[in-house]
């Protein structure tokens, strides 16, 4: 699996990273620490895409069983590692997630999902009756069971990016769109921007949805819009919220667990996330649309109705902001990480949909390992770009 950059050793070697989201910035950090001369390019500003509008779940609770769940477990451990080594400061907040079932059908989904989590080595606790109301004071009486998913947490995507920016070691070119690459003998040798051509020894594409414009074979990456709601602060006497509450329906909406009758074009899964500020982040929709600027009252009201059903005390709060973001989704629900055909020194990391904050730092580390030609710490063969036959468009 390691694909060494086959250039002769130079000192220092240079790498161009396209995209200053959490994946690109993490890779930039690790490559810079590995002695590479890194330049990050972004058409806008750091964290201006999905990273800046994500909910910040560093969570295994909702992951689809299989490689994604396994990688999420490793990714959460990696957040813990980055916290222990001081790299992330206090940006990662460990806490449990609570997945709540409100009827028998949801309970079935919950139990099935819980067994997958346990099989992946995640420690969980099934809460019913008094244990449920004791653990989650805010849960509605209609909640019949909850699973506490332990050993995970929360990090705000743009704050992680800001932390990595401040640690520094590499320049960020803001408002600098990469329009293409220069080639020589099957390798990328230059990054083309409106400022000119800059030589490079390797390239990592980490531009989320923007990655598609560099690739031939349209289709594997598509926008999936999410709308999110921010509330004002809850009073000190509000019922307890020990961690995010996730409706069991969220698992269905996300496709983590199958259920009949869910439409593809728009689904509303619910997570109520208590923020450190005392505010709540409530979301989000999954809509196959690409209008990231608009938010609509119908989606917001539906999410809020569901939220109040799950935690009635939320009705006392006020909505202060509503925003939307676009996730980069793939047709099989798995990210795309690895080499791209068409140039031997080109790598890609995109298609994380709603899992970018959780997986981002680990994927940045694995990209660094691949680019440095080091052994890659986790099996990411299922994320390989070859499964979509992707290659660099301009190299065709």
């Amino acid at each position: 699996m390691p694909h060494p950059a086959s250039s002769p050793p130079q000192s220092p070697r240079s790498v161009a990273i396209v995209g200053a989201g959490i994946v690109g910035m993490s890779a930039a950090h690790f490559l810079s620490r590995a002695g590479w001369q890194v330049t990050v390019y972004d058409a806008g500003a750091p964290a201006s895409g999905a990273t800046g509008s994500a909910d910040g779940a560093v969570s295994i609770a909702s992951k689809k069983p299989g490689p994604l769940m396994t990688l999420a477990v490793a990714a959460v451990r990696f957040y813990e590692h980055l916290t222990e080594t001081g790299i992330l400061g206090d940006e990662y907040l460990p806490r449990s997630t609570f997945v709540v079932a409100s009827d028998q059908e949801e309970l079935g989904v919950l139990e099935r999902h819980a067994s997958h989590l346990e099989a992946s080595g995640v420690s969980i606790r099934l809460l019913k009756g008094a244990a449920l109301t004791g653990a989650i004071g805010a849960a509605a009486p209609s909640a019949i069971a909850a699973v506490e998913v332990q050993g995970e947490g929360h990090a705000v995507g743009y704050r992680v990016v800001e932390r990595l920016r401040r640690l520094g070691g590499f320049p960020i070119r803001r408002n600098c769109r990469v329009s293409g690459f220069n080639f020589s003998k099957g390798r990328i040798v230059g990054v083309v921007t409106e400022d000119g051509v800059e030589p490079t020894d390797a390239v990592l594409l980490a531009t989320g949805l923007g990655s598609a414009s560099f690739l031939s074979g349209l289709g594997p990456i598509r926008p999936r819009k999410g709308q999110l709601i921010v509330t004002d602060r809850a009073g000190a006497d509000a019922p307890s919220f020990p961690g995010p509450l996730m409706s069991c329906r969220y698992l269905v909406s996300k496709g983590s667990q199958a259920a009949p009758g869910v439409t593809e074009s728009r689904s509303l899964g619910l997570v109520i996330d208590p923020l450190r500020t005392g505010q709540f982040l409530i979301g989000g929709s999954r809509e196959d649309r690409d209008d990231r600027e608009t938010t609509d009252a119908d989606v917001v009201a539906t999410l809020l109705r569901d939220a109040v059903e799950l935690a009635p005390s939320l009705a006392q709060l006020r909505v202060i902001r509503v925003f939307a973001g676009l996730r980069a989704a793939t047709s099989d629900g798995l990210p795309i990480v690895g080499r791209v055909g068409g140039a031997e020194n080109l790598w890609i990391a995109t298609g994380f949909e709603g899992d970018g904050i959780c997986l981002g730092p680990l994927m940045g580390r694995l990209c660094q390992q691949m680019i440095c030609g080091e052994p890659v710490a986790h099996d990411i063969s299922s994320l390989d770009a070859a499964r979509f036959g992707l290659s660099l468009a301009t190299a065709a």
Partner: protein
Amino acid sequence: MSAEVLVIGGGPAGASAALHLARAGLHVTLCEQGPRLGGALHRQPDDPAQRIRVPRAQSQRWRALSTALEASSVQILCRHMFAGIEGGGTVLLEDRASGRLVTRRPAALVLALGAVERVTPLPGWQLPGVTTVGGLQVMMKSTGQAPDGDVLVAGSGPLLLALAAQMAALGKAPVAVLERSPKLVSPSVIASLITAPAYLREASHYLLALARAGALPQHGTWVRAISPRDGRLAVTIVDRHGRDRELVVDRVALHDGLLPNQNGTAAPSNGPFVVRAGDCREVLGGVAAMADGRHAAKAVLAHLGRSTEAEPSATRVLSRERRAQAAINALYDYSGADPAWLPDETVICRCEGRTLGQLRDLLASSDPVSAREIKLNGRFGMGACQGRFCAEWVAAFIAAQRDGEPPAVSEIIGSRWPVKPVPISAFVTLPPSRPSE
């Protein structure tokens, strides 16, 4: 019935627009967030017997307009707060009496949201007991009473005079009125106001009342800092010679001019035809607002394909008021304190308690961080007011630190609905457009 036209804001501009639209035969609904029409300028008292004195011409203008409005077909909805235009183009109103969210799809929307009051940051401006001059004046108009205790009025602008004189008329003149601008009325200003003599009359009445109360404005004098002391406020004042002195008071009212309230006024392409009117379009005061309401009505009628007549008198009023306001504003200094000497602990964003030190820290590196990064990581503009009160200042501060690429206020201020915080309990009353999954 013809399509509905929705007018937001029950001040002079909104009331005038609604009246003229109704007279043209349209179905008009006028929404006001407060309990009564009037806006900030013509705020009506909670108890009609408890009313503060305002210039007679001003109250007569409002009486004439509100009487005509009552006789018209305009449907008036008080306690209805404009929450914005959502992505689907629907106008959202929070009915504060019933606690429900109301949706409307009008053929046209007139926004007459008035002005926002500027206060430039200074140490201690976020303390309890510190208010805005306009806010205090509206409170006095509502209650008919001046606040108890020692009040200091400071900043710049004609509103300082009006508030101080109204307090004096109630026997509770401020302990001092500090006007930052060193200028006094000049002959050239009087000359420019010759076509708007009402302002000169109003100012002379105010000055007379303040002279009698011994509270004439101290020009060239400003507040450096406010700090709490024994349940009161200790205010450091810089006089016209640059010397500091201290005054201990119960309340401080600050004001640094007015800006159009354009929060949430951007219209999505699939939304209604939107016209702004009054101070929300251009801050020209109450006389101009009534004329501008007529202009807004004309724009709506033209959009709806109704025949309209020219409004030469409204146009004349607007140009006269624009000249008068320019002359008045030239007398004042709305710049506020020089940020260079403001201490790091000065609060910039009062919603989230973010400080100047935190802003300086974000700007400290050689890396040219963008306005968006400053917003996200500094949390300026991320609070309940969406930057309505700090974005202009933050943008100006960044511009002063940077050569060449000052950020636009629009990069910091939020333009999203809800325009103001809306209770979740109101949202859940919206009928689902489709069954919940």
